[in-house]
């Protein structure tokens, strides 16, 4: 139960980060969404044995976290916890791919280990970018940006409704689960039967809530469109932000920056 409450608090904390007032928070969300997409596509377009060229991509989340005054430790811990599938599947790479690719002194490094490390690094980069985007922009603003970039209005409305009732219903579910847990002793009472009727009641209550909401919305003159604030505009700062990051991503995609840097240093100090 503690973990559920923890998850809920975690969700709220990420949501509240978007209320910050830094320069990055004030940018038009479309610029941030597009820059994040360019970043993710650049990262995943590398070959599977690429490791060193991925490292400089850490600049993107690091700069955004620092300039956006986000809690770095919290985001890093969140990144470290996620993506079980990627790591679980990647873990098998060293077993299937045993061709030796590099030597580090007497140690032979197989392709499997390199590609596993690459998968872990990619996970950290892509997940970190997605979380940073959420923390800098906030969910409603991301929906707004996507709608203005061409997402269908019905889907945007669905996302906004979901977001508004997410916290309400999750708390209701947590309360119901806690009540059941307090009433079940040892291992009796938390089986499928009580689960199904708990979930069923939650479903029916949800349905009734939706009907009440619909009536309330009609009473307030709902016309099929949620009013949103379309006041932000895509100006020069947004264009500069987008161009800067896209250019950096493309450049880092085409050049292996760490290797160039290393050559510079080792070349000058033989």
């Amino acid at each position: 139960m503690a973990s559920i409450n923890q998850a809920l608090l975690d969700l709220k904390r990420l949501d509240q980060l978007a209320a910050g007032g830094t320069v990055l928070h004030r940018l038009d969300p479309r610029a941030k969404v597009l820059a994040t997409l360019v970043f993710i596509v650049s990262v995943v377009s590398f070959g599977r044995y690429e490791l060193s060229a991925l490292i400089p991509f850490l600049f993107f989340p690091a700069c955004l976290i620092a300039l956006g005054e986000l809690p770095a430790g919290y985001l890093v811990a969140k990144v470290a916890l996620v993506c079980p599938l990627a790591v679980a599947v990647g873990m098998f790479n060293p077993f299937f791919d045993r061709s030796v690719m590099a030597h580090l002194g007497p140690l032979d490094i197989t392709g499997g280990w390199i590609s596993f490390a690459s998968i872990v690094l990619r996970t950290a980069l892509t997940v970190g970018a997605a979380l940073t985007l959420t923390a800098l922009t906030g969910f409603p603003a991301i929906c707004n940006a996507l709608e203005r970039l061409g997402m269908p209005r019905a889907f945007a409305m669905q996302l906004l409704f979901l977001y508004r009732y997410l916290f309400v219903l999750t708390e209701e579910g947590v309360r119901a689960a806690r009540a059941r847990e307090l009433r079940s002793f040892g291992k009796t009472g938390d089986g499928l039967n009580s689960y199904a009727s708990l979930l069923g009641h939650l479903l029916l209550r949800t349905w009734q809530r939706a009907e009440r909401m619909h009536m309330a919305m009609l009473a307030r003159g709902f016309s099929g469109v949620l009013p949103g604030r379309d006041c932000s505009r895509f100006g020069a700062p947004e264009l500069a932000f987008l161009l800067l990051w896209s250019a950096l991503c493309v450049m880092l995609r085409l050049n292996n920056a760490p290797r160039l840097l290393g050559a510079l240093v080792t070349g000058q100090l033989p």
Partner: protein
Amino acid sequence: MHMADALLSPTVGGAVWAVSAGGIAWCSARLRRESDDRQAPLMGVLGAFLFAAQMVNFTIPGTGSSGHLAGGLLLAILLGPPAAFLTVASVLMVQALFFADGGLLALGCNIFNLGFIPAFVVFPLVYRRFIGHAPGRFRQLTVTMTASVIAMQLGAFAVVLETVASGVSSFPFSRFLLLMQPIHLAIGLVEGAVTVAVVSFVRKARPELLQQAIGVPAVAERSRASICAFFLAVSVITAGGLSSLASEQPDGLEWSVAKVAGAAELEGARQGVHALLAAMQEKSAWFPDYSFDSAKPPVDPPRSPAAAGGAAASGTAVSGLVGTMLTLFLVFSAGWLLKKGSRATVAPEG
């Protein structure tokens, strides 16, 4: 079950995203045409319900582990396919942004695996075809169970296909399949049991809710099936066509093998796009063809090619390692400085 960005290639991710985005556009247009504005709040709250339901667990008898609901099929039974698809897609989007389940590129795959397959493949072809109008207990149990298991199996199969087609993981196709399908057989059985239990609860408490989705006229069903077939065909063609297109060029794999192994240059990479990129790289590189002995004059007595390759490889490896460390250091110090700088500018105001 959630696909991850790190396992996807841009070609596969983009192709599946195109299919999912097409699905979202079509469903949105369809719901708009139906113009039942009761549907909007209902879908939103049911999406939130799925979240709430996933926070509650139950104990699976005999195993000690716990399970919970995924809900694609349940929503299709309650809302009908288009609304269920949009609801699942929205839930997955929130998961991608807040919990970073998967990622933004993999979101397309996840919407396809967990939303499209249950709503547009399994629900019309299995569930609605066999459930009938007034099902008995046995029929309800077997049909819902079968549909859940098939949905999970197809979803897991799609994950395997997407992973193998991307080629980031080196899992062989057959072994990955043998690993994934049995696990998802168990998950599908649990999901089926929960779906049966909740649906029969609703059937007892408010049977009229279930009639809405089942009682869609047969004409709509036919058009839906044809559209579903269309989307499947498009996805197969796009994925197949694009990936064969992509693999005609010397792709990331061979290219990076050569890089990591330290072979100086690949012969085949001297044409087309790669030649262009290589030319750009040579211009922008400070030390083209670097290695430890590159500073020596080239009139050295010729050594055996293997030895030369080895020296070049170790040179490349060392400079790569040093550069990596330096870059990491730069990243962290940049982050630290930026943070410090922004604090310093904020502090006087406060």
